[in-house]
């Protein structure tokens, strides 16, 4: 036989040098992510513990101290009815962050799932889902939510219904286009060759790969949703007075803009700070590695 005598040798041990391991776990996160994450955590704490932190109630009227400038007793000053703006902001944050979480993450889950299905199966499933997604995305968010509120009436209810109707579509589109690429990778083919059910292939193997970019995107989405919420509140379409919402506090202060700038400026800065935190986290995650993931 002219074959090489590899057959009679014992198998060579796997001595190939593996790629260096990145730092895993929390140490592996970049500075950006940590700073941003810190900010977000601070916000969550402030929101959760608002009733304990806030020096005043959210609707404590005090007509003696109308439009008081910021001071130690009123960190953000007071508004036109003497209410402490800082306390109002804390309570508003509580409400708004809660809504933001509710309208960001459930649509993410639904959207990724539907997008994965559309990308995996193709054919008619894909055609139907993709077209619905296209229609949803065509609507400017704001207009659609306003239309829903026009039907349902202003208040938190309108936002909770209106935003998810469109929000899932963005994630579905993202997940679908990624699934189309993922489908061709050998390991997805291997799930079929190994006899795994399609359910397992999609849920256990594909979706975890798709989640990564959706989660990164959700940091941006949270900012966008918070901005949307506050915009709606500003327009008077959000939670109705006297409930404190970030946008309505700002709207209240508009009439006294020149003289009592703090009512409008400071709550807005709070929103910007939150956005900065979420943005830094999103940036940091998309730059670095987080335990493997689709290259």
């Amino acid at each position, binding site marked *: 036989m002219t074959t090489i005598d590899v057959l009679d040798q014992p*198998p060579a041990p796997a001595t190939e040098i593996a790629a260096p391991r990145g730092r895993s776990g929390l140490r592996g996160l970049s500075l950006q992510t940590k700073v941003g994450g810190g900010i977000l955590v601070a916000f969550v704490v402030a929101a959760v513990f608002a009733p304990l932190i806030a020096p005043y109630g959210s609707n404590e009227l005090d007509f003696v101290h109308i439009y008081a400038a910021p001071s130690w007793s009123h960190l953000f000053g007071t508004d036109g009815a003497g209410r402490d703006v800082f306390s109002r902001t804390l309570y508003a944050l509580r409400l708004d962050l809660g809504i933001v979480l509710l309208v960001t993450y459930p649509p993410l889950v639904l959207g990724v799932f539907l997008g994965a299905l559309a990308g995996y199966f193709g054919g008619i499933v894909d055609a139907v889902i993709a077209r619905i997604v296209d229609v949803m995305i065509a609507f400017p968010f704001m207009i659609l939510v306003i239309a829903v509120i026009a039907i349902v009436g202003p208040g938190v209810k309108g936002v909770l219904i209106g935003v998810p109707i469109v929000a899932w579509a963005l994630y579905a589109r993202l997940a679908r286009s990624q699934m189309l690429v993922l489908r061709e990778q050998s390991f997805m083919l291997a799930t079929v*060759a190994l006899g795994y059910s399609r359910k397992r292939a999609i849920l256990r193997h594909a979706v*975890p790969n798709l989640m990564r970019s959706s989660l990164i995107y959700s940091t941006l989405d949270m900012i966008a949703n918070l901005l949307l919420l506050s915009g709606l509140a500003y327009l008077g379409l959000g939670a109705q007075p006297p409930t404190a919402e970030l946008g309505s506090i700002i709207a209240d202060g508009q009439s006294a803009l020149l003289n009592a700038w703090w009512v409008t400026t400071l709550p807005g800065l709070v929103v910007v700070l939150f956005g900065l935190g979420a943005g830094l986290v999103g940036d940091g995650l998309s730059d670095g590695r987080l335990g493997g993931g689709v290259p």
Partner: protein
Amino acid sequence: MSVTSGSLLRIEGLRVEFDTPQGRVVGVRDASLSIRPGEIVGLVGETGSGKTMVCRSAMRLVPSPGRIAAGSIEFDGRDVLAMSQRRLREFRAHDIGMIFQDPFSSLNPVFRVGQQVSETLRVNLGLGKSEAHARALELLSDVGIRDAERRALSYPHEFSGGMRQRVMIALATASQPRLLLADEPTTALDVTTQAQILALLTRLSRERELAVLLVSHDFGVIAQVCNRVAVMYGGHIVEAGPIDAIYTNAQHPYTRGLLESIPRLESAGKRTRLPMITGDPPDPTDAVAGCVFKLRCRYRQPGCDEISMALEPVSPGHETACPVRPFAAADMPVTGAGARA
């Protein structure tokens, strides 16, 4: 190949077609193949010869828009083409395994290596968590991954290509299948690693009575490990037989061309031209009358326009589709040392 009884896998008259916007493409025109238990069979051919499709068909893994248009596939007497989806899944889980060409996307990047092997043990063999974990470590060291306990915690991107292929092999053989389909498993690896992987496959085949269908475009790879080989061209099997017979006494002009184009060590330093088969492989959308190789064949005769590409015996177990037999007369050995015959 003449289809023998007692075979583990029997493919007869396989035809695989694709319906594309440019028209109907025939990937495999007519292929018959059989594999006996424990035997390593090679399937060699160039890109577009149809070898990958034959391999994929064995577990009905032909990607759409392709489909198996004709032929029969039997595994251990069971009709693979008639299996229901559930049966097919069980079949893939327990009786047959497959490893793929690209080691870089062959493992799920978000799960640890050990996890992926354990998963198949739990899902396909019903093992409990700790049992599966222990067995997974055994499997990993069995395929040559040292320090399996620590390495099992790594992610695929931390492994080199060769190691990933080993994991892939462990995964595919975890449920003790009787046949392993290997679709160009070493093409993306360097030569040293290639030799190691081939050695691994050979050892596993011997130790576990595992039959292997090894698909490659590289005759050198085939020659290292296979007992028998089939040569494919243009969707047909043009020659098949024991590796020795093919290597020393190939009867089909295409096979000879392939063998002659392997550079030999002795030709180093000599100013000779490597013989090559001129021309291009046939366009799979065109139907060719007669012999599918005729346009590139040095020994073409007028009668070649009418032959049927059926395999005829040369000696026991050795068949060829070439009725002209230009090499039969003087028992011409395969040269390939750079001289033009």
